[in-house]
């Protein structure tokens, strides 16, 4: 393997691992904003307990998000120095805005959110929670803007050539609101909210049949389910809109997602399949014409196939195809879980149904896999470009970084990440087993209830 491939694996590993946590943090932050909002409104300490419990899970995923996110800050310059010089002028302003507007908001107020329960009035604490949630969402916004610019560049001009080539910013708002930004942002955020909602559903469904924390679980469950149902449906709309943008601006990516080698006006939708790039064939269960209808809304405008482009401009077709389809299957899983949840809610059979409950507990895996698979589709589908039609990935790597260095750091990251992931699962499980009634440590003051008289505790 050459340095570029190894560097790509390293980037995929570090960003893929990082992306396990931010969606969970973003999704849970929305849940906490809702729960604490109800608590403030009703002054009902039960909702306070709910908010505190989800805040604990949030803290865990936030800590890992910060730790793994730091790596991303350096990753561009470490292995992709030519790319960094090329995009710095354009890309940097989005990252700077993220740092100043989003990170500080998040990191500044998270201390108050986690440690401030006894320190400040409920209203002020709620303000901190909202700031953290807003910061987390805003942070995603800038990152998606920067990445979307790499998919559909806008608001720039190219100066110089060869290794001196640089993109210069000409129009900031055109750069941020590049053609794919809004659709991709919506898609990403809905993915995050689904992650939070299914975490809540999964934990609640874990407690219910065991008759533990029943009141807590039902109240959490209700909100988790509402968000999950709404978002599963909205994600379908967003997916359709995103795919049409891909078809318009990145036709090779769309062709690879569905394995379309020949331009045709009755392009099929493949349900399951396998692509053999060398023989240009797709073995699949197909729905004829469906892709055509989805992309063009008719059966006579052709869908552009890979044959319109030289093979040097193709991504690895089967990899894009499989990760894209994996994402769709995961959506199917979430859809099923949401429907099951609704049925059980209606019949009030949360405690009884056995196998469907197990399915619901397990359902938390779907959004995580879908998030990862979605990003793999987006990034693998963009290949061989690192910036669409402007710079090839092979041109962007650091010339001074050799194979040994990348292998060394790759091993280092793998070891640390396996270790961190094991810890995360261990502590997550611990927090869930302890539940919302967790005991305080010796010597601690208890959470005060600001709506009760001085000295009383909840």
């Amino acid at each position: 393997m050459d340095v570029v491939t190894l560097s790509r694996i390293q980037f995929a590993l570090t960003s893929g691992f990082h992306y396990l946590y931010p969606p969970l943090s973003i999704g849970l932050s929305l849940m906490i904003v809702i729960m604490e909002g109800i608590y403030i409104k009703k002054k009902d300490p039960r909702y306070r307990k709910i908010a505190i419990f989800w805040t604990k899970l949030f803290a865990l995923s936030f800590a890992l998000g910060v730790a793994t996110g730091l790596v991303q800050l350096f990753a561009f310059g470490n292995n992709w120095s030519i790319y960094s010089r090329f995009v710095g002028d354009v890309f940097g302003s989005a990252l700077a805005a993220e740092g100043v507007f989003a990170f500080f908001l998040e990191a500044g107020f998270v201390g108050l959110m986690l440690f401030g329960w006894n320190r400040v009035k409920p209203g002020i604490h709620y303000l901190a929670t909202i700031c953290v949630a807003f910061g987390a969402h805003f942070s995603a916004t800038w990152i998606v803007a920067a990445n979307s610019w790499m998919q559909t560049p806008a608001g720039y001009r190219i100066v110089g050539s060869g290794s001196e080539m640089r993109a210069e910013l000409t129009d900031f708002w055109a750069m941020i609101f590049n053609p794919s930004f809004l659709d991709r942002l919506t898609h990403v955020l809905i993915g995050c909210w689904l992650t939070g909602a299914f975490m809540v559903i999964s934990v609640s469904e874990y407690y219910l049949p065991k008759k533990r924390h029943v009141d807590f679980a039902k109240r959490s469950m209700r909100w988790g389910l509402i968000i999950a149902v709404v978002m599963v449906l909205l994600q379908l709309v967003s997916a359709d809109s995103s795919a049409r943008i891909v078809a318009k601006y990145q036709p090779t990516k769309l062709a690879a997602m569905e394995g379309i080698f020949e331009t045709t006006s009755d392009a099929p939708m493949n349900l399951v399949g396998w692509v053999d790039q060398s023989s240009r064939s797709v073995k699949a269960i197909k729905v004829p014409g469906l892709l055509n209808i989805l992309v063009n809304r008719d059966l006579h405008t052709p869908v552009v196939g890979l044959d319109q482009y030289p093979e040097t401009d193709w991504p690895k077709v089967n990899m894009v195809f499989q990760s894209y389809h994996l994402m769709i299957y995961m959506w199917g899983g979430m859809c099923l879980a949401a429907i099951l949840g609704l049925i059980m809610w209606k019949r009030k059979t949360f405690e009884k149904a056995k196998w469907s409950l197990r399915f619901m507990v397990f359902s938390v895996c779907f959004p995580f896999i879908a998030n990862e698979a979605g990003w793999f589709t987006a990034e693998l589908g963009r290949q061989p470009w690192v910036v669409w039609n402007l710079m090839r990935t092979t041109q962007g790597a650091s010339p001074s970084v050799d194979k040994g260095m990348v292998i060394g750091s790759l091993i280092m990251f793998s070891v640390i990440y396996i270790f961190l992931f094991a810890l995360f699962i261990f502590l997550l499980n611990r927090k869930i087993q302890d539940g919302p009634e967790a005991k305080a440590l010796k010597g601690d003051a208890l959470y005060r209830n600001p709506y009760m008289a001085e000295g009383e505790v909840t």
Partner: protein
Amino acid sequence: MVLEYCQIIWYLIIGVSVVMYTVLDGFDLGVGCLHLFTKTDNERRLMLNAIGPVWDGNEVWLIIVFGAMFVGFPPVYATICSSFYFLIMILITGLMIRAVAIEFRSKQESRTWRKTWDVMFSIGSFVIAFTIGVLMGNIIKGVPIDQNEIFRGSFAGFFTPYTVLVGVLGVTVFMMHGAIYMLMKTEGEMHERVRRWVTPNIIAFVASYIATTVTTIVYKPHMINLMKETPYLFIVAVLAMLVIICVPFFAVRGKDGTAFIFSSLTITLLFVLFGLGTYPDMVRSSLDPSYSLTLYNSSATMATFKVVLIVAGIGVPLVLAYGYWIYRIFRGKVSLDEASY
């Protein structure tokens, strides 16, 4: 002309961010380095919770430093990250381990669990402090980059006696800073214990500061070129000395807050001296000075500066305002409650 002003302003913004990072995360790192000098679990929790609500926000300044470099001086960001590849990997490892150590340490009652994370937290802090020093030392010394800004050195080349000395300076200045911070945050028996740490830490810092200053003047004479040209800049060096003297002066008299301000000023002035010595280079080439990346030959364009100066103009005052507010909420002596680490 206007671009030149923008370059200088952005250079100063990066400088201010470096100072903010080292002053604020400096005491977090110092507390981490001192962590293992405490004995009981309760004391260690006090140490952690003294920085608990703020360390995360403090670390964002490091992100700002590199983010601001990426946007304002893309070639500098690219060159520093790709040249210092392994040093940055070490820094990242330290930052990651330290972040999870703080977060995870008190999540289990087990003594081995807590001991392990205590050690991780402390080692992580030492590694970060030392690596930052070594990085600074290498930037003073110069980096072997050729005319295409490509690194031509080796990992071993980063560790010369001089850079290690600057690394030690990094550790000692943060330890002093952290000890004085803990003075402000503790009371009773713990406070007395912390007080005993302060003097040795100040002595260690002053010793490494004098050693670094002398070696720099003797072996890195380019660092005082600017001062030779404009002699009134020597005031900064004199000021630094006065400020350093003030740290023990106030610390032994029990004026903990004032001592902390002077300790923060010490760090600030160290970076002012660093800036005066390296200006206008951001990455100095040790192969040929004409290959160096300066703030004038490696910046972003006017269009970008316009955007980011607006962003910084709106964002930074906001950040400082609510940062100040959060510090005020958590001011005073640290105490433990159910939400603590």
